């Protein structure tokens, strides 16, 4: 669990664990973290914690909220971020167990949790052991092929198809066109596979997978460019706010939460 270390001019006042979904900071007594200082607004800021992510939001305070020296309205807290409210500092610290995990890792873990929802097996069935494979056709009476009993096709246990695609756990992502006649237009990546570009000239595909979103070249002599770097024929994983250039059009990839 993460915590905040409240300090004033270098001396620690107290530690506050982020054990509630919503923790408020302000001058008034009903706040979870009360700071009695006139530079602090009555309801100054709040921190919403969902699983491993904590979101800091300024609640329209008079004097504003800084994170690492920069004013913010909304901010996803990273380990060791320093929040400044008036002269007070609140350091955001993630406990050691998860401190090493970058944000991407958190996303991955969350995906795993959602995959274990009912109807979707968590672990694969035991690998087919050759020694215990069923005697296919052995206990079969002599009969024509049409009336033979069904023959087991596989050595492993019959498994219901995990039809709900694993990709359901993916956050929704979209592309925003930055240049070209449709600049400003947003394309939501709602399908497992979205093709982009001009057929015959240059086409790329963005695939949605359990591990994230990937862009791959499909056709054309020129390959897509991501953040100024030309890709090769291999699939390339996209990160939030990557800029893609394709068939003369620039677009930004971003995750929608």
């Amino acid at each position: 669990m993460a915590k905040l270390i409240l300090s004033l001019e270098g001396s620690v006042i107290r530690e506050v664990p982020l054990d509630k979904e919503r923790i408020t900071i302000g001058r008034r007594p009903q706040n979870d973290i009360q700071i009695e200082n006139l530079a602090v607004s009555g309801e100054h800021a709040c921190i919403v914690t969902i699983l491993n992510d904590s979101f800091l939001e300024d609640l329209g305070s008079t004097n504003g909220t800084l994170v690492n020296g920069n004013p913010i309205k909304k901010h996803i807290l990273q380990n060791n971020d320093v929040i400044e409210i008036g002269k007070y500092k609140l350091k955001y610290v993630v406990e050691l167990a998860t401190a090493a995990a970058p944000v991407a890792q958190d996303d991955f873990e969350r995906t795993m949790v959602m995959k274990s929802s009912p109807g979707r097996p968590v672990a694969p069935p035991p690998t087919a052991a050759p020694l215990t494979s069923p005697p296919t056709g052995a206990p079969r009476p002599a009969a024509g092929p049409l009336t033979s009993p069904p023959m087991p096709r596989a050595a492993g246990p019959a498994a219901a198809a995990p039809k709900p695609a694993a990709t359901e756990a993916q956050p929704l992502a979209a592309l925003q066109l930055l240049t070209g006649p449709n600049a400003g237009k947003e394309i939501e990546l709602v399908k497992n596979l979205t093709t982009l570009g001009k057929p015959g000239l240059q086409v790329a595909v963005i695939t949605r997978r359990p591990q994230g979103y990937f862009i791959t070249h499909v056709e054309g002599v020129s390959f897509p460019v991501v953040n100024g770097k030309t890709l090769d024929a291999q699939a390339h994983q996209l990160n939030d706010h990557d800029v893609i250039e394709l068939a003369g059009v620039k677009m930004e990839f971003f995750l929608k939460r």
Partner: protein
Amino acid sequence: MPNLSSVLEVVTATHPGMVRSHNEDSLAADAENGLAVLADGMGGYNAGEVASGIAVEMIRTEMKKALASRKPETLNGGDAERLIEAHAARANTAIYRASQSQPHYSGMGTTLVVALWHDDRLSVGHIGDSRLYRLRDGALEQITRDHSLLQEQIDSGMITREQARHSQNKNLVTRAVGIDPEVETEVHTYSVQPDDLYLLCSDGLSDMVSDEDMQLTLSSLAANLPLAAEQLIQLANDNGGRDNISVILVRIAKRYPARTGVLDRVKAWFK
């Protein structure tokens, strides 16, 4: 036979999947002769690989020989169907004998799907639950109908297609090559159009990837067949990859009528 390598664009791909330690699927494609063969073996030890390997290798080499000795104008739909039936029957006999003579091959068998393109047509034979699909004008259609318990249940109205998706009985086939002394191959002939895209696959694909996703993948990536094949396998593995996954993709670049020109026919008529 006319050389079809300029007519058919063929890509094959196979993967053991995420669960199985070895791959019991076998496949072969021969664009020149317009032939594609895919088999999904079953049986203990490595018997499944042996069975599917025998079926594919026998059909590939024997049919190639048989086609080499044919004059193109003599091969019609009926001939192609008989050719497929005859070679499936020979593979059945070979696998059955091997399983009878060697204890560790006892009970081995395989599914089979054989496609032969000829004269603007396609003849397809199948046994078991390996499938042939066709993408035409953006719509994917399953051409073969499984010989499986599930398909029988659907046909008899016991369960709906939607219920079948969640059935526990996906792994039960009602017909296979090499299990009995004789096997009946289901063979049909279809007309072919330029830009048709055909997919032969084992159940490792069709059980793991919905028809909608297959259609989306094939129609989006038709310009890059190797990528389309790779993407299908990736989809199956992302969804769990419970079984070996094999795909053969065949795209028809243009028409390929047998060389029976008007002059040939007129000559034949006056003889």
